């Protein structure tokens, strides 16, 4: 699979307000009952969406104002909990191409980058202002630029952050890093042969 360069993501955005949104909420475990990732887009935030509908509310992912959004704006510690890649898989398959948030859990972040999904962080005030702006006017065009590491939305413009390795991987199209790991397999084999627990007391 050849990866493509991801220099920017632009489009409309949906706000998903709340800290510590865990991967059980993003993708309840019953949707892990399959040997492929196919169809996961139907189940993203499934329980939250059903819950909102029952309460007469509209979850942002079902809100026609945000239909077709390609960015998601989240708060602190997004994607905490389970390591299930089904969570970012579902988000990507739903159509999201970039996430702006205050912070991400490490495993979720790593999974997202491996799918070519930039998950960038920004200051609390900037994230809150962006969420408010897109809620006020969902037609606002949001642009996430990985070259300048800035997000813009109408009059709003602010710095976003991404660890250097993740940024390089995305902008150079090397986010699918297996090729890099396998570049010199002999080196790995020689390395393993010298590990004390494989050499001296296996």
């Amino acid at each position: 699979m050849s990866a493509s360069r991801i220099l920017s993501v632009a489009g409309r955005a949906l706000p998903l307000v709340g800290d510590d949104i865990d991967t059980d909420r993003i993708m309840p475990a019953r949707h892990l009952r399959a040997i492929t990732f196919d169809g996961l887009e139907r189940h993203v935030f499934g329980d939250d969406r059903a819950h909102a509908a029952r309460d007469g509310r509209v979850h942002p992912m079902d809100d026609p104002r945000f239909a077709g959004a390609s960015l998601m704006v989240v708060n602190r510690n997004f994607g905490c909990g389970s390591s299930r890649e089904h969570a970012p898989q579902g988000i990507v398959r739903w159509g999201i191409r970039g996430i702006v948030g205050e912070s991400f859990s490490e495993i979720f972040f790593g999974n997202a980058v491996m799918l070519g999904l930039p998950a960038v962080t920004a200051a609390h005030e900037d994230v809150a202002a962006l969420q408010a702006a897109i809620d006020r006017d969902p037609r606002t065009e949001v642009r996430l630029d990985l070259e300048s590491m800035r997000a813009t939305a109408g009059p709003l413009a602010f710095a976003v952050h991404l660890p250097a390795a993740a940024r390089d991987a995305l902008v150079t199209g090397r986010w699918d890093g297996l090729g890099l790991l396998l570049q010199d397999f002999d080196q790995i084999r020689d390395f393993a042969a010298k590990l004390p627990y494989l050499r001296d007391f296996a």
Partner: protein
Amino acid sequence: MATLLDKVWDLHTVRRLPTGQTQLFIGLHLIHEVTTPQAFAMLRERGLVPAFPDRIFGTMDHIIPTSSLCRPAPDPVAEEMIATLEANCREHHIPLFGLGDSHQGIVHVIGPELGLTQPGMTIACGDSHTSTHGAFGALAFGIGTSQVRDVLASQCLAMDKPKLRRVRFEGAMGPGVTAKDLALAMIRQLGVNGGVGFAYEYAGDTVARMTMDERMTLCNLSIEGGARMGYVNPDDTTFAFLRGREHAPKGEAWDRAVNWWRRMASDSNAAADDERTIDVPRIGPVVTWGTNPGQSVMVDEPIPDTASLPPGEREAALEALQFMGFDAGETVKGRRVDVAFIGSCTNARLSDLRAAASLVRGQRVARHVRGLVVPGSREVQHAAEAEGLDEVFKAAGFEWREPGCSLCLGMNDDKLSGAETCASSSNRNFRGRQGSPTGRTLLMSPAMVAAAAIAGEVVDVRSVVPRGGVVQ
């Protein structure tokens, strides 16, 4: 002057990648039926095969039924996932502890049990509770399915080295207090995201006195505090646990191993990036009231007034209270429970079952409570049965099950229904976690779950006098 994190990281660094990350060799790769089928498929698409099949071990735990071992499994989806892992392991000569195997069990219970988990190793698995193995002085962490693919293909991962936070537990544990309570108290103190970017090194006199089972419970819950890995430096307690285990070194190799393991521990004066202290004598039995593991109180303490919380946490706390059907100022003690679950990679080892059984012996589960005991592994199950613990639980009205993850995450038939409240020895009280979108989970120690099952409501385990003496 280096920490275990430094030493093990450096030892496993194959090279520095052009991206600046480390190409880290993975000494032990554990796999199960739920997060691997797509990884094997991706490998196949690229015409690759597992590079080090003898460093990979498979088990089944997440979706398998715990009510029967029959094949085909009554649930066709479970059967498909079981059969897929069997086929993948067979094709690539990966040892697999399948349904009915005497070594089968929850991946984080069997690794240590078989002596596969050893000090100084790097260990990865497509499951966030892989941090459990850190109890042995390993760097162990959860990975996603694309990373499972990477490890299968190369036995390596591209990683950034975390910072190190040393968490010192100081003082004696009070009566009725367990490693679970210490971990939950720590997460409340440091926050559910406090550990992001850190590995946790657990130290202090309390940890030094802990058994391996207790250390495993503590390390297991690292991820619930945001730390992807947590470890305890290896010591004589570690070595005594490993000695004689099936995959532990034998004879002269054992002595070489112990010498090397000792040297992998953090040097006594090695500095961490951050240090915190947990005052253990102040901790009582802990229960969660909310929908993340940091939302907890001691069992006799009122649920905090949301106005007293930092502004960023108020709204989430209000939502959690509403979801759980609690009011601020209430105590969790007295909350009626519908289901009592003793199981999971956090608390389903023999010592956990003994502690629970000591409260159950000669008692009856309350009429309205469904009680479930799910041993962590076949070995735990057999050892418990040899002591008659299964009879103790069954006589009290608990169901005694086959090993697996079960009601911890509700992937099989073991689920809450509707807005049932579950006293649970598991690790996550997230909304919907136990299989019902409106189900309510109260996390607590196995002894607290047992006491709640008997009383029919959450009680303070310290107020319950077990028949036949306390087992700690």
